[in-house]
């Protein structure tokens, strides 16, 4: 019989074993944690090397969404569902408190869904902004939509959907909506940094008068005077500072760059970040990106990853960047991304992505043209009554300045320079637009772009003529040698303008049946250029009379518009004592 002895470990031994076991576990966890951190860093470095500009700065408010999903475990789905329902019902009830917080959580929880981001950006820019009554609040809500897009863009750069939607909000919401005048004004001003103006104590008593003369509104004057009294300096936008500068200068008065506060205390965006320096040139950080690869064919476009890369060719912007300009830049980025990475847009076809830069350049040019007309009205001291959006503003500003003789003194010389700048920008955009249309035609040979091309060409001629006419007016009538050349150039361009608008009208605003019936034998829309100017004019006149008498309404507004441009050019030629080519 054998005896088995069971040996029990003493309690102190068991405790010691447990202690060491726990310690070992803790050490393993710690080492794993350090190793994971190291590996993560290593892979991110590799990722950054492969995908330029990818990834965002990690902050608590920009918590990695996958980490968040991991933290929430299986609750992410139900939570997102609840947030969607709740935020949409809040929107319906127009209760926007904590609405944005919910949208932000949705963004973090559904980072990989572009359709979610497209909807939310559109939701904020269109549905939520219209719930605001005041334009300033509408504007900041739209900025909030852009901010949303930029957060996604910083996490996943060069996503065709996000870049396109940012462009859409800039171009269509800020640049073309019902409140575009207000929005455009804000964007133009905010594209510059602020300026800090020091005011010596002995100049303080004059400050109110200076600011009044500079056209600063009373409410803002009060703020500026208060600031200057307290701190010896006040801050204002660059464009306002430009107006103040001639009125307030001398010893002790300095103008220095000042970075504006773009966010309020709760992190809500109040204004756009500056995009230009004080001279109107794009900030290097917005145009300098990755260097162009050496092996890239010269005719191939290159997206360097910079925010406003494609606006470089249009600078300087001494009066600020318009939302249409910014929007166009994003559309262009979108197009190049499509070609480089072959991404597909969720909502738009490849054709639309490809032709938008061309078409939107044309629209941008037209907007600049309109801005030039308004500036010209100011320059001549002509006022237009406030109008609502149902009235065609362009129709009201096209002709009043046309019969202004060359000898007219400007009521506002700065406004004349402003108008000249706008007309010159139209020429730049038109030149680029024609190239863009060529580019698009290469990809889509079947696209019929003649109407766009013809109107751009006509607009370009008109703006060149107006630019030269106004520039000549700013020069001395006797001493300046450039003046005669400018006047001659204006004559040439105005003559060309008349021909181009008549051609445009006959080619695009007359239907084919009418053209076949009343165009002279052997003349078709394709060979209208073969007519001499007087013949062309006679034909235009005849066709117009015919359409008038037959009450043709389909193209009536277009024909009226073309007639206005024709009349403007004609009246200017009269002022130039030139013989119109139509005679």
């Amino acid at each position, binding site marked *: 019989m054998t005896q088995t002895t069971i040996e029990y470990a003493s309690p102190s031994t068991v405790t010691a074993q447990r202690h060491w076991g726990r310690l070992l576990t803790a050490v393993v966890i710690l080492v794993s944690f350090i190793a994971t951190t190291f590996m993560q860093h290593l892979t991110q470095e590799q990722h950054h090397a492969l995908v330029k500009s990818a990834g965002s700065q990690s902050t*608590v*408010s920009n*918590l990695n969404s996958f980490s968040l999903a991991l933290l929430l475990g299986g609750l992410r789905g139900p939570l997102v569902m609840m947030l969607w329902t709740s935020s949409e019902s809040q929107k319906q009830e*127009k*209760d*926007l*408190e*904590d609405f*944005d*917080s919910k*949208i*932000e*959580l949705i963004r*973090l929880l559904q980072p990989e869904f572009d359709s979610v981001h497209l909807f939310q950006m559109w939701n904020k820019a269109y549905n939520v902004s*219209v*719930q*605001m*009554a*005041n*334009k*300033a*609040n509408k504007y900041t809500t739209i900025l*909030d939509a852009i901010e949303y897009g930029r957060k996604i863009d910083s996490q996943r750069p060069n996503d065709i959907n996000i870049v396109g939607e940012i462009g859409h909000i800039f171009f269509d919401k800020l640049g073309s909506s*019902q*409140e*575009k*005048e*207000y929005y455009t*004004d804000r964007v133009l001003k905010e594209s510059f940094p602020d300026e800090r103006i020091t005011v010596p104590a002995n100049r303080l008593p004059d400050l109110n008068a200076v600011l009044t003369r500079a056209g600063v509104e009373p*409410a*803002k004057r*009060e*703020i500026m005077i*208060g*600031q200057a009294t*307290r701190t010896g300096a006040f*801050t204002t936008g660059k464009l306002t500072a430009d107006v103040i500068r001639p009125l307030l200068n001398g010893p002790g008065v300095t103008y220095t760059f000042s970075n504006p506060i773009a966010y*309020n*205390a*709760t*992190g*809500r965006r109040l204004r756009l970040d500056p995009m230009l320096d004080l001279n109107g040139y794009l900030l290097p950080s917005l145009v300098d990106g990755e260097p162009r690869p050496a092996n890239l064919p010269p005719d191939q476009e290159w997206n360097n990853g910079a925010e406003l890369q494609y606006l470089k060719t249009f600078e300087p912007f001494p009066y600020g960047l318009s939302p249409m300009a910014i929007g166009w830049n994003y559309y262009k980025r979108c197009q190049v991304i499509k070609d480089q990475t072959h991404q597909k847009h969720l909502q738009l076809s490849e054709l639309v992505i490809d032709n938008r830069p061309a078409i939107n350049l044309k629209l941008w040019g037209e907007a600049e043209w309109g801005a030039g007309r308004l500036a010209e009205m100011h320059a001549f001291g002509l006022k237009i009554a*406030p*109008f*609502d*959006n149902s009235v065609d503003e362009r129709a009201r500003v096209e002709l009043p300045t046309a019969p202004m003789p060359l000898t007219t003194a400007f009521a506002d010389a700065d406004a004349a320079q402003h108008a000249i700048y706008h007309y010159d920008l139209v020429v730049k955009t038109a030149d680029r637009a024609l190239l863009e249309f060529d580019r698009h035609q290469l990809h889509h040979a079947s696209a019929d772009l003649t109407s766009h091309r013809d109107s751009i060409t006509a607009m370009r001629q008109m703006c060149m003529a107006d630019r030269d006419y106004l520039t000549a007016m700013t020069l001395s009538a006797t001493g300046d040698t450039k003046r005669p050349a400018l006047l001659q150039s204006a004559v040439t361009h105005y003559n060309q303008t008349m021909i181009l608008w008549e051609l445009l009208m006959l080619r695009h605003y007359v239907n084919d049946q009418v053209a076949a019936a009343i165009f002279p034998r052997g003349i078709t829309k394709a060979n209208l250029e073969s007519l001499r100017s007087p013949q062309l004019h006679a034909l235009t006149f005849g066709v117009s009379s015919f359409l008038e008498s037959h009450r043709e309404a389909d193209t009536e507004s277009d024909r009226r518009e073309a007639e206005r441009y024709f009349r403007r050019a004609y009246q200017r030629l009269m002022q130039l004592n030139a013989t119109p080519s139509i005679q």
Partner: protein
Amino acid sequence: MLLADLHLPAFIDAHLEWYVAAALIVAGLAASGLADLSRFSPTRIWAISGVCFQESIRRRVLWIIPLTIVGVVVAVQLLNPIDEQDAVRQTIKYALFATGTLVVLVTIILACTNLPKEIDNRVIYTIVTKPTTRLEIIVGKIVGFARVSATLLLIMGVFTYGYAHLRAGHLQSKARSRLETMSPTDSGRLSLQHYADYGLLQSKTYARTADFQQFARLPLPEETNRWVNGDDEQSFVIGFDLPPALFPDPGTGQDNGGLQIVGQIATEYFDPNREWHPTPFPGTMPGAAEFKGFSLKEISRPAVTIEIQGPDKYNLIPSTEMPGGGFVELTGSKKSEDQQLLTLTAVSLDRVYQLPENRRRINVKFQGNGPIRYGVSRGAVHLFSPRLKSLGQSGIIVSVRDADGQPAWPTFRGRELVGNQEFKGVADPAKGSVGVFAFRNVAVPSNDAPVPVELRCGIEGSGEEISSGESNTHAIVEVYNLKTGQTSPSLDLPIESNRTVFFNIPAEAVTGGNFDVRLRCQAPGRYLVLRNALASNPALQLVIGQESFAINLSKSLLIMWCMSLLVVIVSIFCSTFVSWPIAVVLSVVILLGHWGAQQIGDTNATGMGAQVAKDMFGVKNPAEAKVISSAVDSLSRTLNIASKVLPDISQFSATEDIERGITIAPHVLLASIKVILAFGLPLTILAYAFLKRKEVAP
């Protein structure tokens, strides 16, 4: 279906939960003997609770607190608030939500697992073998877990207070600095000034407006008429109590004879330039331009549309049952002449007969047409009953009367949306409509400090505004004191849609507690959307008291503690007869049962059965439809009765008021205590009864 067929007397139905609670307590104690109750010892209970508390601490429940705090801080960083007040509001909301979730989760897990585990690992032997009763065990454990939840709430409360203070202080100082550069005309300036002056952690007590009415122009004491605008913009409503004699007994073969609406309604054109009287045109019609923007379709002759509403102010008689759809042209009534406006048929009035005798009130609503003002005086409209006349009475039914016996003024209102009224903005507020918020018998502060007021309304635009330049909406506010007869200077307030604007009115304007706040709106083409006086958060509120945030937070935590107490009781009750995982699920079901039953019950309101039969099952056979319909209706009734005997956790509203900066009223606290008494007490007795009969030790 048994519950559904149960028709309880009204007095029992109204307080069913109390009767059930009393019955359970009596039955529970009677079944288990009162001996244990007589041996009830607070000392032993405290000792048992101490063990529970120590055990919970030993299980490291407090370690969850730092995690929760980190979670709150991270979540707050993700917020995207509208302004400083919203930031603090959301911070408090998140912190209290996390606190509530933490406490409920911890207590439900601890309480559900405690008893089953003690029975499994025989720890309970050490208790039951001592001279303790099962009642003391149950109560001791409830007290123990209540102490745990109190500890959690205390720590989280201190954190919430500190964190909210930190954020509020930071944002307040930022608001002060932002004010220095903010334009005086900015619509957010008044609010920012308020935050800078009063801080962001507030607990306010509001005085509510008794009524909000709007008029075409300010009613003057000497005027006999009060006016509303036409163009379907405003209306007035006159109430009539219909006498029982109007309705003959069924079976007599008689009918009520219908009613005639008779009255004098004055009219005046509010823009003489727009007045246009149609005349026949010889030859071709002239262009619209000749009418100075006046549309040829515009109705220019005085006319009103009449609606008959029931006692609840909802439409009672459809317009299709009224002559001309309720549209009545006024025949240029002179003050001395009544005009017979409309006749209501006997059949239509039968609908009123269906109502209880004391609720047979009809409200006649008049809405004017065209660019015309419509005026009405007290008692200007009455009803005439041919039946009452035939019974030898005068036949005239006058409108409802005020306390002084005079016919009451009609109620003057704007275009009504759900729970809201529209108020039209104009370019010149002096010529526009005026809204009157009536405050009566308000306990205003006795000091001379200005009284803070909050205005919040929606703004709807017509889309006709000019594109360039800002176009703020302005509310022009003044206060008329009924006691002194003085009107305070007007305040011009730039406002934004659905954002609260804060302003102060002088103390003397509210002296006596009876005053009218008059509102005008400067914003052509826009409408203010004002929440009705009876809404939980009406458009205009007066701050008549302030309380410390710490006290308000304590109240909120106390309500949460009451909720955690209920959770503990329900969990322990469940754990006495099922295993702990089932107990957790069952506890959640019991706690959410009332809400769920009510949701389904409410959805299946009267008539829902028929709709379900039609829409969901597509039944066309009437017999089948009736079966489905009655089954759904029975289910709905059953659920409604069931919901009454389940605890209503919505009564523990711990966060709603505090996050909106409102002082938690005593009745909110009482409501949560009532739930504890009505449901906690009987469940404790039931738990005791179950444990008494459970074999927990050999």
